[in-house]
C-alpha cells in the first residue's frame, strides 16, 4: 500500500509538470518539430535574445507586473490595516467581498472592466482610453485580493500589545507602524507582493480585454500568433518565463519557512521566560 501511495504522489507530480518539461526540452531541440529530437542546441535562445519584437513585449509585461504588484501591495496593506481594526463581523463581511473577485471568472472581470473603461472614456470625451493606464488599473484590481489574503492573517497573528508598547515608549503612531507593525507583517507583505507579481506576469484573459494599441503585453501578443506556426524561440521564451516564476515561488517558500522558524523560536523563548518568572516568583 505504501509503495502504491508513494508512486501515486510521483504520478501526480509527473502529470503536473510534464507539459512544462516537454516545452523545456523542445526549447533545446535543434529541429522545429517538437516531436522529433534532432540534437541539443542553444540556438533558440540566442535567436530569442536577438529578437526585436518579443523582448520589448516581455519588458512591457515585467513593467506592468512590477508596478501593479507594488501599487497593489501598498493599497492592499492599507486596506488590511483598516479591516484589522473593524469589528469581527464587519471584517468577515469585508473579507468575503474582497475574495469574490479572486473566484470570479477572469473573462467576467475582463469584459466588465473593458465596459467600465469604455464608459468612462465616453464620459471624459477620450476616444482612446485603453492603454497603459487601464492595463495597470486592471492588474492592480485583480492583484488586490491576493495581497489582502496574505497580509490580513499576519496582522491577526501579531501581538496587539506590541503597537501600544511602542507608543508607550514614545513612538508616534506613524513610527509605531513603520518600526513595529510593518516589521511584524513583512513576510505576509512580501509573499503577497510576489503572488501579485506572478499573477500579473502571466495574466492573459483580463489583459486581452483592456489593452490598447500603445502598450501590449507578451501573453496577448503570443495569442495572436496564428498566421504562422509557432517558432521554437517562443518555446525558449516560455521556458525562461517558467523559470522566473519557479524562482519567485522558491523565494516565497523559503521566506515562509524562515518566518515560521522565527516564530516558533520566539514562542519557545517567550515560554521559557514565563517559566523562569514562575520559578523566580
Amino acid at each position, binding site marked *: 500500500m505504501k509503495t502504491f501511495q508513494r508512486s501515486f504522489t510521483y504520478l501526480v507530480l509527473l502529470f503536473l509538470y510534464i507539459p512544462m518539461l516537454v516545452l523545456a526540452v523542445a526549447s533545446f531541440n535543434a529541429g*522545429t*518539430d517538437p*516531436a*522529433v529530437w534532432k540534437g541539443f542546441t542553444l540556438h533558440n535562445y540566442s535567436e530569442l535574445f536577438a*529578437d*526585436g*519584437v518579443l523582448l520589448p513585449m516581455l519588458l512591457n509585461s515585467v513593467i506592468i507586473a512590477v*508596478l501593479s504588484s507594488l*501599487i497593489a501591495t*501598498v493599497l492592499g496593506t*492599507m486596506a488590511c490595516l483598516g479591516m484589522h481594526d473593524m469589528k469581527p463581523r464587519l471584517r468577515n463581511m469585508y473579507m468575503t467581498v474582497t475574495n469574490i473577485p479572486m473566484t470570479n471568472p477572469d473573462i467576467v472581470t475582463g469584459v466588465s472592466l*473593458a*465596459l467600465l*473603461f*469604455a464608459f468612462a*472614456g*465616453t464620459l471624459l470625451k477620450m*476616444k*482612446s*482610453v*485603453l*492603454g*497603459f*493606464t*487601464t492595463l*495597470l488599473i486592471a492588474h492592480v484590481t485583480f492583484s488586490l485580493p491576493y495581497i489582502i489574503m496574505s497580509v490580513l492573517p499576519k496582522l491577526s497573528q501579531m501581538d496587539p500589545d506590541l503597537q501600544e508598547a511602542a507608543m508607550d515608549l514614545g513612538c508616534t503612531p*506613524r513610527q509605531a*507602524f513603520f518600526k513595529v507593525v510593518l516589521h511584524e507583517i513583512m513576510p505576509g507583505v512580501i509573499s503577497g507582493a510576489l503572488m501579485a507579481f506572478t499573477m500579473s506576469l502571466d495574466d492573459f484573459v483580463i489583459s486581452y*480585454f*483592456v*489593452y*490598447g*494599441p*500603445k*502598450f*501590449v503585453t507578451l501573453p496577448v*501578443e503570443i*495569442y*495572436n*500568433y*496564428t*498566421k*504562422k*506556426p*509557432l517558432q521554437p524561440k517562443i518555446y525558449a521564451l516560455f521556458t525562461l518565463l517558467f523559470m522566473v516564476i519557479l524562482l519567485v515561488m522558491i523565494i516565497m517558500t523559503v521566506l515562509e519557512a524562515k518566518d515560521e522558524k522565527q516564530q516558533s523560536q520566539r514562542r519557545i523563548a517567550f515560554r521559557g521566560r514565563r517559566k523562569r518568572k514562575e520559578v523566580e516568583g
Partner: protein
Amino acid sequence: MKRLCALLLCSVLLISSIPVSASAAGGSINVYNWGQYISDGSDGYIDVNKAFTEKTGIQVNYMTFDSNESMYTKLKTGGSTYDVIIPSDYMIAKLISEGMLEKLDYSNIPNYRYIDKAYRDQAYDPKNEYSVPYTWGTVGVIYNSKYVDEEDVGSWDLLWNPKYSGKILMFDNPRDAFAIGELKLGYSLNTEDKDDLRNASYELIQQKPLVQAYVMDQIFDKMEREEAWIAPYYAGDYLLMAEENPDLKFFFPEEGFNLFIDACCIPKGCQNKEGAEAYINFLCSPEISGENLDYLGYSTPISKAKDFMDPDISASDIAYPTEETLANGQSFLNLSVEANHEMDALWLQVKTQGGVDSYAVWSMIALVVLLIAYLIFRQIRRKRRIAARCARWKTDSRD
C-alpha cells in the same frame, strides 16, 4: 502618511501619462493587423514599421488580432481608436454595410496605381472606395506525392477518396470547411440557401469517417512528418511546408477554390487619417510590398513588387497562378446572420456526428458510475466496521 500616499499616487499618474504624451508629440497612428502578419525585422528581413517611422516621422503603435471576428468585437466595444486595420474580404463587406469604415482619399495614396487590375474592384468593395489590397492568397489541396497517386489528383473528390482513409485532414472552422463541400457540389461559396447548406453538411458528414483530424495550424507538423497525406490549406503556407518536405505537392481543384484578399481600411473614428493614408501608401510601394511579402510568404497584389522578392517565390505558379486559374477562384462575402447561424448549427452536427466524441461521453459516464460505486462501497464498509466495533464493545463490557 497621507502625504506619502498622495506622492505615490501622483507618481503613478505621472508615469502612466509619459508613454501617451511622448508618442502624441511626433504624430502617431494605431495599426491593427493580424498577428505575425508584417515583416518585423527578424531573420534579416526589413522592419516595415521602423522604416515607415524613419521615412515619415510618424510613430506606429502596432497591435494584433487573431481572427476577423475578434477584431470586429474590439472595434465594437470601443475604448480605443485605430487608424489602419487589415481585415479579410468578407469582414470588409460587413464593416462597409454597417458604416464602420471611412472613405479613402486616393490623392494621398498615389501608390494605388501599382495595384494590379485583377485585385481591384472585388465584390466585397466594388469600387475600392474603402480598401486597398494588402495580400491575397488561395486555398488548394496539399498532398504527399510519395503516397498519393497522380491520377487521383485534380479535384476536391480527393478529400472523399476512401483509398486514403485516415490520412486526410480538414479545416477546423465552418466557413472554410463548408466552402469545400459547396465547391464539390458546384454551389456558390456565398450561398445562403438552407438546402444548399444542408447538402454541403451531408457531404462533410459523409467525409467524416475518412478524416484523421479537424485542424488548423497542426497541419504544418502533420504534413511535414507525413502523419497525414492530404490536406486543404493556404498556398502561401504550402510553400513553407514544401521547404521542409519536398515530397509535398499542391494543386488547384478544377471545381474552383477560395481566393481571399486582406486589405487595409480606415475605421470611423480614426484620429490621424492622413497618417493612416501615408501608411497605406507606404505599404503599397513596390519595394516595401516585395520585401514584406517575401518574409510573409503570401502573394502580393503588386506585380512590380516581384522585382524585390526571392525569384523562387515570385516565379512559382502556386503563389502566382495564371489568370486562367485565378478566374476559377471565388472570394468570400459576408453572409447574413441567419445563414451564419444555420452554418454554425450544421457544423456542430458534423463535428458531433458519431466517432470520438461519443467515446468521451461513455468514458465519462463509466468514471462517474465507478466513483459512485466506490463511495457506496466505502459507506457500507464503514457501517460494517462500526457495527463490528459495537459488537466487540458489547462483548468486552459483558466480560
